[in-house]
């Protein structure tokens, strides 16, 4: 046999054997009748021929991982196997492309490392796993739930930790599963963007951004506190197009990001002083009468008070001193911004992850509003929107079993994506226990009446994403049972008693909307689930079956569900009208775009109590903030250097980094240190260093880089499958200033962290 015959290529084109003839021979000889093989069986299809050339089956999918871009995906399947994927060409936003992360999707279902079966760990963190059947896993879980009910008389001892790891609409069936069991403990709020959501709600009555595709019409674009070149790659083409048409592109960020490198102008602002810079610009615009007086008079309230605040408290020099941006440049930027029509600011989520983050967003909103750029095509204070999320939340809305008890009285579960109220007010005498997701470790430690006994983790990796990891270790010690549903092993799975294998996007039905662009995709089941994986709602149904077998009536979740049918139940006429489709089936032909004007607040009918843009918001004051977008000082330093832990290029929070493709580009984590600081600390490129503060430490290799401010330490958030690196070791759970109004809980001051640094 020649060596060329050994290559997989020739094997793939295998069998010079003419199969039919061959099979006939076997059949005639009766050989196939008594094969000794115990596993393989005669092919069911008559011919059984595998055709390698020819057509693919095409399915519609969407990237569901809480990314701005929420790309529509076209999946090509042959013989039940995903062959390749591409971005949907029908979406002008995706325009046929994905990103480096998205192109790796085919590696998810087919990674040999994915979680395949329900498994039980004999001792958390021991790595001693037993494979169990779904039945046994559910039996253990259900019995624990019934035991909690027995012991406490309610299910408040059962808590849910879930966020955006899979953002499909039917994935809200996880919350539905909890409701169907009873009143439980919910970790609510969002670590992502709550301060900015509240800020925009105070100012305008909702968070609503222009269509990113209309950025091409902007004459001046400020990208403030976000790195679109890494985190919203598809939006960047609109920035470039605006630039090609003559717009100036300015980036403001403490880190010289990839986006900054592409801009016309970049300002390395002192972290957490964004409000001061925006207010300094506003003062100059005010003094020079560059604001849009007509717009302000017609469409806002409180401008005079805001103007007085600026005159009395803000100067350009002060703003320059606070922010580190020279006064002449603040003046220049202010003048250019105010006179370019339209001008827009893209407010990144990074800038509001501070103790003054909400206040900073309000100051930036004010800058956009006073220049008359709100409600304009190509203008706007762009942050995000939820205008295309009006689904039925059928999976989410489940009823508690008869007689279930919880926290007396009605408490509303809030969250960034909690749209549906759920229980009708009159009937409710009990509620869930609502705790802060951003202080998960602390609330688990504090809750005692009853204690949290059991934690269900889904669409989330608390050990990578929640704050103060060492506290989380202690909190987990208090838990009697931890169940984690995931696709890949990670530190949270390691600290669990039971792991359940969940489907990838190709193996389930759901719907994906974006909080940034205006497109909507369905996510079809393109292949059958590999191994014994199930979707989140199928897991809920399986649990319900077991619960009801053990104790009839103990769970209201349906015990059999057709997940395709459940997807269809999420649609309503409002969605159909908004997207101009007759039925969800239309989305099989490709994603659809909402028929909305591209400018948010185009009709200038704001959702605030006054119906106008509120420079002065009484609502903000009611929620414990200043009524005006006043400057709030940054967090006091708690250690020598600021620690910044933004998104990496090769992952989305805790996802993707573990996959082999990402590892090729990004095999290990670094601490990025400015050469000046490195020299002070006698650190050379490649040295192992320790970043430490009062709550923990991170040890890894130093990389010297001038993209980092000289008084800061930069580490990208992530987890690596073969490395204990975890930035949450040094990130505490200090709250940001806003978030409680709309999302139920304040956000976290992720970028207001401090630590020292030393060579090991």
């Amino acid at each position, binding site marked *: *046999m020649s060596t060329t*015959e*050994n290559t*997989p*290529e020739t*094997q*793939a084109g*295998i*069998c*010079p*054997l003419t*199969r039919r003839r*061959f099979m006939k*021979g*076997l*059949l005639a000889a009766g*050989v*196939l009748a*008594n*094969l*000794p*093989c*115990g*596993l*393989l*069986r*005669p*092919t*069911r299809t008559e011919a*059984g*021929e*595998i055709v*390698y050339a020819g057509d693919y089956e095409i399915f519609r999918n969407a990237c569901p991982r809480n990314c701005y871009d929420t790309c529509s995906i076209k999946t090509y399947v042959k*013989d*039940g*196997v995903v062959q390749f994927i591409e971005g949907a060409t029908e979406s002008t936003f995706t325009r046929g492309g994905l990103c480096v992360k998205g192109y790796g999707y085919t*590696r998810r*279902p*087919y*990674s*040999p*490392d*994915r*979680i*395949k*079966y329900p*498994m039980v760990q004999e001792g958390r963190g021991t*790595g*001693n*796993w*037993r*494979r169990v059947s779904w039945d046994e896993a559910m039996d253990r879980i259900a019995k624990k739930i019934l035991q909690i009910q027995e012991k406490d008389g309610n299910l408040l001892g059962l808590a849910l930790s879930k966020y955006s790891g899979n953002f499909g609409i039917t994935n809200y069936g996880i919350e539905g599963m909890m409701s169907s069991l009873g009143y439980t403990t919910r970790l609510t709020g969002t670590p992502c963007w709550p301060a900015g959501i509240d800020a925009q709600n105070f100012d305008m009555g909702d968070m609503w951004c222009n269509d990113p595709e209309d950025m091409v019409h902007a004459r001046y674009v400020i990208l403030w506190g976000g790195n679109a070149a890494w985190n919203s790659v598809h939006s960047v083409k609109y920035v470039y197009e605006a630039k090609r048409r003559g717009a100036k592109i300015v980036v403001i960020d403490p880190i010289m990001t990839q986006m900054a490198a592409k801009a016309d102008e970049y300002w390395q602002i002192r972290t957490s002083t964004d409000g001061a810079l925006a207010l300094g610009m506003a003062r100059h615009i005010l003094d020079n009468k560059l604001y849009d007086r007509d717009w302000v008079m017609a469409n806002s309230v409180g401008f005079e008070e805001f103007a007085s605040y600026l005159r009395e408290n803000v100067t350009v020099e002060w703003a320059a001193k606070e922010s580190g941006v020279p006064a002449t440049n603040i003046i220049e930027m202010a003048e250019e911004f105010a006179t370019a029509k339209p001008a827009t600011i893209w407010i990144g989520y990074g800038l509001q992850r501070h103790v003054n983050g909400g206040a900073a967003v309000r100051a930036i909103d004010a800058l956009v509003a006073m220049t008359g750029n709100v409600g304009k095509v190509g203008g706007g204070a762009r942050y995000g929107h939820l205008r295309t999320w009006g689904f039925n939340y059928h999976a989410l809305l489940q009823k508690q079993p008869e007689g279930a008890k919880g926290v007396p009285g009605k408490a509303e579960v809030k969250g960034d994506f909690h749209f549906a109220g759920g229980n009708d007010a009159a009937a409710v005498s009990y509620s869930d226990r609502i705790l802060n997701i951003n202080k998960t470790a602390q609330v688990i430690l504090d809750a005692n009446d009853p204690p949290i006994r059991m934690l269900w983790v889904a669409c989330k990796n608390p050990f990578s994403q929640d704050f103060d990891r060492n506290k989380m270790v202690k909190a987990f010690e208090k838990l009697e049972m931890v169940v984690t549903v995931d696709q890949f*092993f990670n530190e949270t799975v*390691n600290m669990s008693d039971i*792991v359940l*294998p969940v489907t990838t996007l190709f193996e389930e039905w759901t719907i994906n909307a974006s909080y940034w662009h205006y497109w909507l995709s369905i996510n079809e089941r393109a292949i*059958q689930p*590999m191994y*014994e994986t199930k979707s989140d709602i199928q897991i809920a149904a399986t649990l319900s079956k077991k619960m009801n077998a053990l104790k009839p009536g103990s769970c209201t979740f349906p015990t059999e569900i057709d997940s395709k049918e459940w997807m269809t139940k999420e649609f309503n006429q409002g969605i159909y009208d908004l997207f101009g489709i007759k039925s969800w089936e239309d989305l099989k032909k490709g994603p659809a775009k909402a028929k909305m004007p591209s400018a948010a607040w185009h009709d200038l009918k704001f959702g605030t109590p006054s119906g106008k843009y509120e420079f002065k918001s009484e609502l903000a004051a009611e929620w414990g903030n200043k009524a005006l977008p006043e400057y709030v000082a940054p967090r006091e330093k708690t250690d020598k250097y600021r620690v910044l832990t933004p998104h990496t290029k090769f992952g989305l929070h805790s996802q993707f980094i573990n996959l082999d493709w990402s590892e090729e580009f990004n095999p290990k984590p670094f601490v990025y240190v400015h050469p000046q600081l490195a020299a002070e600390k006698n650190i050379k490129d490649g040295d192992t260093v320790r970043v430490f503060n009062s709550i923990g430490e991170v040890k890894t290799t130093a990389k010297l880089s001038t993209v980092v401010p000289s008084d800061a330490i930069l580490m990208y958030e992530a987890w690596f*499958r073969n490395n204990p690196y975890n930035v949450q070791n040094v990130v505490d759970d200090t709250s940001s200033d806003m978030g409680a109004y709309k999302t139920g809980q304040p956000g976290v001051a992720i970028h207001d962290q401090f630590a020292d640094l030393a060579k090991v």
Partner: protein
Amino acid sequence: MNDIEAIRDFFLAGDAGKLKRSYQQLSGSFEATPPVVEDWQEVEFAFNRLFVGPAALEAPPFSSVYLDAQGLVMGQTTMAVRQMYAALGLESPWKNSLPDDHISLELDAALAMNHVLKKLGHSEIQELHARFMNHMTRWVPLFADRVLTAPSRHPAINHVVLCLSDWLDKQTCGLKNYQSAREEKV
């Protein structure tokens, strides 16, 4: 039950009991004496770290991981193996949920081929068998190597893997005879 069936069942075992049962069914026709196992639970834990999960597998039991440039399952190699089963008129009962090139399925196919070969010695089945054995010899040694040197290696599992290698050696001996006969004909 012959040894290869026992090895096949071993690699598919879902728990300590099944591991033990298939291990004990190894007849001892192999040269090495099987190590005595005191704690089957320990074997189960090691077995799962090597072949099942939930953590990244130390020795994935799928041929494609060793033979495809991509290191994934369900790629070219898996499909080639599927096609070889189909050539025999067979398919996996877990088509598209368990990769067709799982070691146990391949051993099952080898059993089927040996059987057919015995019943009908015609050249097509010889050729198919030769190709399939050639495929197995390209990855099983790599797989065995991973198992024998894995952090979670265990004497009992090592023994089964050595038996597997032994069996494959014998098969390929036969294969070499076949190949030289074929070359002579040419």
